[in-house]
């Protein structure tokens, strides 16, 4: 008896491993899915790298901390006084004074005893990329690369938490609706109608107006809204398809209880669809977080949306590409990570949706 159980377990393990291998093979056939996976892995690596760097002491907290770090980067500049009228022999128009390596005298009103023609050491904030700061520093002298890493931690925590929560809720509710039918089903469908009707973003504004939203609060709110919404309907229809399959009938005939059938026969067959939903909802969660912190409605220390918010309020967004390290990395990170998850979802779609496979 003991040996048989052991054998069965081994067989199950082997089957599972084979299934994973087969699915992986299918997944790796889709090029876009692999690109997405690479992007996600890259950001995961960034998110994990930062604590390692702090822990090993390669980065000191004082300089590289994404929120309170500060680095003083100085440059020696020539003190000049801009003329009242243009053009002069040195300056062509208003925009060309002060030129490269020069600083206006009236900007140094705090420094005493500085004359025109002196060399003076000024702080460079935001500082352009250098070896010490790969992506430069922001207007408060904080390292942008470190902020990007912190932002990817936030994005992963938020995305995975809210997606797991949302998909958990919607899978259970969808299966219950399909399984019990009748009044429960009708109630759940009306409920998801209501949630679908809610305009999410205004709702989040209102919630953030009276509650100080921290990152995990937001994850819970997004997860619940996502979990009660349209995905319940889709998962229900999938579960209905599974419910009428012969193996459910045979399980019922052999005396399986309702709950047993639901959890060990129906749920596993709905799971692939749920996983797909999860991957897609990560995209939505990341976007929502960035939008909210872009509008300054979230109570968090650092995120990609907040970085763009800061660069906008500091007035660098219209400086074009002169201060590109303040504008491009954060925006592209949001785009690429959301896109990466989306592409992974597309790849998984090819695996779980056999009708679309290339044959």
């Amino acid at each position, binding site marked *: 008896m003991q040996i048989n159980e052991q054998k069965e377990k081994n067989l199950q393990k082997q089957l599972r491993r084979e299934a994973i291998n087969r699915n992986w093979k299918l997944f790796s056939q889709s090029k876009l899915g692999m690109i997405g996976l690479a992007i996600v892995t890259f950001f995961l690596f960034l998110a994990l790298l930062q604590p390692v760097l702090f822990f090993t002491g390669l980065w000191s907290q004082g300089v590289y901390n994404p929120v309170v770090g500060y680095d003083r980067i100085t440059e020696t500049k020539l003190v000049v006084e801009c003329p009242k009228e243009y053009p002069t022999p040195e300056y062509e128009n208003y925009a060309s004074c002060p030129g490269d390596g020069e600083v206006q005298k009236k900007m140094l009103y705090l420094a005493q005893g500085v004359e025109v023609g002196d060399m003076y050491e000024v702080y460079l904030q935001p500082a352009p990329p250098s070896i010490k700061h790969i992506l430069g520093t922001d207007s408060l002298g904080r390292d942008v690369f470190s902020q990007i890493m912190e932002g990817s931690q936030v994005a992963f925590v938020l995305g995975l938490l809210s997606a797991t929560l949302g998909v958990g809720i919607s899978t259970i509710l969808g299966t219950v609706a399909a399984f019990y039918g009748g009044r429960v089903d009708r109630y759940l469908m*009306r409920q998801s109608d*209501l949630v679908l*009707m809610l305009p999410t973003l205004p709702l989040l504004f209102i919630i953030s107006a009276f509650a100080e939203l921290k990152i995990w609060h937001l994850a819970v709110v997004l997860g619940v809204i996502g979990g009660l919404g349209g995905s319940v309907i889709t998962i229900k229809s999938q579960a209905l398809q599974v419910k009428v399959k012969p193996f459910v009938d045979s399980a019922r005939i052999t005396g399986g209880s309702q709950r047993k059938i639901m959890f060990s026969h129906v749920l596993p067959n709905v799971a692939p669809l749920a996983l797909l939903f999860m991957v897609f909802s990560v995209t939505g969660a990341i976007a929502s977080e960035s939008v909210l912190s872009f509008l300054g409605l979230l109570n968090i220390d650092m995120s990609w949306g907040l970085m763009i918010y800061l660069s906008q309020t500091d007035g660098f967004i219209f400086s074009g590409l002169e201060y590109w390290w303040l504008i491009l990395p954060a925006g592209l990170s949001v785009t690429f990570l959301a896109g990466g998850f989306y592409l992974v979802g597309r790849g998984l779609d090819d695996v779980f949706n056999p009708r679309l496979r290339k044959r």
Partner: protein
Amino acid sequence: MIVVFFIFLVSSYLLFNAIPGNAFSNLLLNPNLPPDAYEKVLQTYGLDKPLFERVQLYVVNFFKGDFGYSYKYYPQTPIELIAERLPRTLMLFSVVNIISFYTGFFVGKVLAWRRGTKSETWITVTSVFSYTVFYPWFALMMLWFFGYKLGWFPIGKFLYPEKWYDAPFDSDIIFAMMIKFVVVISILQFIAYTVSRGIEALSIRRNIRFTSLVLIFIGSYFYWNTGEALARKPYAADIAYHMILPVLVVTIVAFAGTALLTRTTMMEVLKEDYILTARAKGISQKRIRDRHAARTALLPVVTSFIFTIVTIIDGSVLTEQIFSWPGMGQLLLQSVLNEDIPVAMAAFSFVGVFALLAHLIADISYSYLDPRIRIKSQG
């Protein structure tokens, strides 16, 4: 549906009620608010009554259209504010919706048709990029590029105030007129399409459609150059000029969702047997694509499109904030930020009504588009 709507109203009231420290009475301490407004607000919301009666009162007030006064723009009521701003939002987003739906559907169609080629991969990558791009950032970059660097389009706002100093009418009239114009044009176009749909011969159909398009153009030219419309033309042109950039940006972002969905459904349709039959009959490729496959694939796309109207309302908040387009979304955001509770409540409820109507239309159009449902419901 009606039950859902009542639940929505009650829950939105409860949501506002949950604001700590009773935001209503807190804000009534505002010294800028005259005593009679204070009394009015107190009465309208029944603040001295228990919760249940307050909810009842709110629902009744909603149907009366009575939301008290705005705290910030004092003598105006929320309804007046909404009535002022709704046309602007409607104008912007009706145009965006139409354009993005057609481009999205067309691109998706072509994508599914060219499955496996190199151009398909490239278009897919582009649409995935524009589907997942961080919208505010993208809008700001476009604003910087087209508005600031190239200087083609104005940066924000929906009109040049200098032009409107001696205007004999306010902008809302022009907006109403432009909306009427757009609606009439699209109805005419739609009629032309439905009439010509029954005609089998491709060349005659194409000619009819082309003539109708030309006729509409000539008609609108005459309309804008006669009588009352002539005086209003420069102002309308000013608004239209300010609309180009927002429409462009939102379209680029919004078309991708439709395109990707069309691609998926279209690919499933192309596996069906009747496509094979059509091929075997020797029908031209374009005809199979447009009349056999795309028709069937249209159904889920239309449904999802109507569902995304809610998402578009969401997006309107951002668009209007970035382009400082003074519409409903901006009103909602500003009122929430200023804790102007009556306006926020009114705007939020209105957005809910909007979404509800969209769902209703979705249900109706679904049964119209899918003959199976229509026939089943008839008996």
